[in-house]
């Protein structure tokens, strides 16, 4: 590994998301909420959702987290807003696939920005950074205030 791989990990698109994350902040009104924490590195994230009739109408997050986690949250919340609750699983699978094998496969639902996560394969200890927003959002959906 070298600084070359480092650029694979921190692709400029990812750095951009981390510096100016989308959907950052707390929703004034939300129906679902969860906090996630990665004890290894101290990443902490809160996810807020406003779900109406099965549709995630609004989604936002706040975090004290590393670049990978922040960018992942930014891309995720952008993708999820406006979708049906049920579609989360397929989006999540898509994302896992990219982390797992760095697959250059289609991104059906996610913005192409997500391909910036392909480089993470070489950094196993950073996988959880990318996943934290996803598991937290899942928890929010599963155990949050019911709509």
């Amino acid at each position: 590994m070298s600084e070359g791989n480092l650029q694979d990990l921190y692709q400029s698109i990812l750095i951009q998301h981390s510096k100016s994350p989308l959907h950052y902040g707390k929703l004034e009104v939300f129906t679902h909420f969860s906090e996630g924490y990665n004890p290894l590195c101290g990443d902490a994230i809160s996810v807020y959702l406003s779900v109406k009739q099965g549709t995630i109408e609004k989604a936002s997050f706040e975090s004290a987290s590393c670049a990978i986690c922040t960018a992942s949250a930014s891309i995720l919340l952008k993708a999820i807003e406006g979708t049906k609750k049920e579609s989360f699983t397929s989006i999540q699978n898509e994302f896992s696939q990219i982390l797992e094998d760095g697959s250059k496969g289609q991104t059906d639902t996610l913005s192409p920005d997500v391909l910036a996560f392909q480089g993470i394969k070489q950094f196993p200890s950073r996988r959880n950074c990318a996943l934290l927003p996803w598991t937290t959002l899942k928890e929010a959906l599963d155990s949050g205030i019911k709509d």
Partner: protein
Amino acid sequence: MFNVQSVRDDFPILSTLMNDKPLIYLDNAATSQKPLTVIKAVEDFYKTSNSNIHRGVFRLSELATARYEATRKQFSEFISAEKDSEIIFVKGVTEAINLIASGFAQTIIKEGDEILISGMEHHANIVPWQIACEQTGAILKVIPVLDDGSLDLLAFEALLSEKTKLLSIVHISNSLGTINPIKLMIDKAHALDVPVLVDGAQSAPHMEVDVRDLDCDFYVFSGHKLFAPTGVGVLYGKEKWLEQLPPYQSGGDMIEKVDFDGTTFKGIPGKFEAGTPNIAGVIGLSEAIQYLQKLDRAKAMAHEISLLDQATEGLSKIDGLRLIGTAKDKASIISFVFDAIHAHDVGTFLDAAGIAIRTGHHCTMPLLKSFNVPATARASFAFYNNSNDVDCLVESLKKMKSFFL
């Protein structure tokens, strides 16, 4: 002058590569590297002398037992204990503190009593006391940490009382490098008859420890941080305390006689060493101590402090970097954060440059919370680090800024 190059040659790993770069190992507070003599001692034991101890009448077993017990004596001398039987071999600091906490919970702590720790403790010196307090109804009191990362000694004196059943305190903070004034604290505690446990995980690698001079009641060590193998450590306890505490684990080797009608335990140290111990680990520990005893430790310490000074100066000049822990009295451990770059990203960037540091909470979550940071980057130097290591760290951090910002 301390000849750091000759010392470096004793540690095989220091001439390996990490990520195709020469390894710069600055994670010594997490675990230390091992000199070749330690590695060889373990290897030779398995190749020529491996046997269980305390039980065999054959030569191999006699020799293994003799070496195991000789290490007890050696360690006892290393820290100036009064008696060899005050040295108990354990897995590490975590087990040692659990042993003491469990014993105190069973026989000494009562409802309403207090246990006093500090705000800069490692989780290993927090959670066992939380559990002991939960089991007994005692109360855990915490000495606050000041902004520079030193203890609030006035608060300490105010918290100490005849309700205090134990003061358990870290000698050197693994997150901040702060060296606590434990001799003074022990004196104050003893004035109220409060026994003191010192978590020496970080001190033994950096300074000479004299438990008789300190007059502490317990002092605990992890071998893996002391240039010895993993899975071995030492609990020192004054005889009067060790005799008061009940056995911890039970089984073979710690008993005098077992009968279904009742069992009698050995005296110290045997009563605390149940089962087959980490024999090869103890033999490696013995070599590690010998290695340290051959060093000029005063010079080694001075060298470490010069590395700390160099790092402090270098890091202080980096814009946007903030040092966490700036107490006057510090060992060669330095924690820092960036305004705009998360510690985790710092760690990954340095890793690519061959530099191993730790990032995270360093098992001191409450401490980091009090500094209001979720994580720090931490570089910790051993005597085998050199000023080139520090230069590389500082230069890489500068490069990192332009990479991320």
